[in-house]
């Protein structure tokens, strides 16, 4: 009985002192691994674009520009992603031998169905974002952005990719992992050097609808 101590850490060794704190650190590490590695894996599901689309082929091969498809309309609204109809202006018949193109034409162009593209920065309904206001003209009055730099402030730079990036969907909110939060907008909108000098007011209705 004498060998059994209810409280073994009675000061007899350093190892038992270390053993005393070990469970805490084990717990800490477990939590950190869980929180920083496992949790994000669990929170997001991976999705792929319904049609494999190569920006590279269109930019380098066909010599198109970003604004050939992603343009501002005359009324000031932003076209966003092209419709099947506008894709069909070129792709009414397969232009290459890629089976994915043939599938696109068969499934979408021939049926008139729209592609349900996954938009990495899709904002909630209550957000109003004006692409017209965030143009090269207005930002470059002070900055010296290239178009790629400006666009990729918010969007992933896909201009030279052959394959679209994986889309991570938040299982709870159903938004993309890359959907910007309000604080990202405020980095500029609430910035003292922006506020008042540009039209980037931080008023609620500037970004909400």
């Amino acid at each position, binding site marked *: 009985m004498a060998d059994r101590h209810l409280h073994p850490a009675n000061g007899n060794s350093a190892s038992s002192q270390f053993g005393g704190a070990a469970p805490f650190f084990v717990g800490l590490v477990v939590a950190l691994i869980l929180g920083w590695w496992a949790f994000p894996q669990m929170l997001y599901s991976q999705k792929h674009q319904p049609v494999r689309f190569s920006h590279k082929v269109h930019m380098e091969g066909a010599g198109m520009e970003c604004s050939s498809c992603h343009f501002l309309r005359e*009324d*000031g609204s932003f076209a966003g992603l092209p419709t099947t109809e506008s894709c069909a202006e070129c792709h009414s018949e397969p232009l290459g031998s890629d089976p994915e193109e043939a599938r696109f034409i068969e499934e979408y162009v021939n049926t008139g169905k729209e592609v349900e593209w996954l938009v990495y920065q899709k904002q909630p309904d*209550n957000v109003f974002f*004006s692409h*017209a*206001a965030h*143009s090269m003209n207005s930002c470059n009055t002070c900055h010296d952005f290239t178009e790629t730099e400006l666009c990729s402030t918010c969007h992933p730079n896909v201009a030279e990719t052959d394959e679209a990036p994986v889309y991570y969907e938040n299982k709870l909110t159903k938004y993309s992992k890359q959907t910007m939060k309000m604080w990202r907008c405020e980095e500029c909108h609430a910035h003292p050097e922006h506020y008042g000098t540009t039209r980037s007011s931080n008023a*609620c209705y*500037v970004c909400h*609808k």
Partner: protein
Amino acid sequence: MQAKEFKVKWGMAIDIDKCTGCGACMVACQAENNLSPIEDASNKIKVMNWLVVYELSNKKPFPEHDVAYLPRPCQQCGTPPCVSVCPVIATDKNEEGGIVSQIYPRCIGCRYCMAACPYHARYFNWLDPVWPEGMEKALTPDVSVRPRGVVEKCSFCHHRFMMAKDKAIVEGRDPEALADGEYVTSCTEACPNGAIVFGDLNNPDHQVYELARSKYASRLLERLHADTQVYYISRREWVRRQLDNYLDNEKVKG
């Protein structure tokens, strides 16, 4: 309280003498701002209406009786009583143009603002909005749909303001110097009698500038000093008298 001053101040001049109460503005408003229909619209507590046309009476018996109609959007007060009571800053008056904002996802539905608003311009979603099957296809993409539990109100069709600015930017014009009529609300546009004029109250090039200064112009409950941005015009003294709580022996403008 000092009113916040803006370079641009969007406002309305509504000629009550021209309104015949047809309701085109009310229907246009609902369609434009994605309000939902309600089966029993006689339940005025649960009916959502950003714009209501009220009936005024000179309270005299037949045949001396006279009737008038008063369309009431949010008055976009200079010193909005609703803003100061909001515990979460879901409503604010902080943007160029002076439109009082209302951010739905931020609203916690406490309804302090409704109690504070002297114009009954604010509405609480007691019920989830429901459209008959398929009718959601006729919703516009410009205004988010509000769920149950939040307060909403007229925004002077703020999305139209944003769209007008975007158009100006694309055309290389100054978005802060919109011409008269470039941005108007849906009710202004719909009114077949032209009873509503909309524009910048600070810009002499806009028609409302003069109209707001007309001797027949006055504002709702003006003596509360809410400094509203909606002016009502009537050549009839009894109508102007009813816009505020005048005593019998008090004189009104005009």
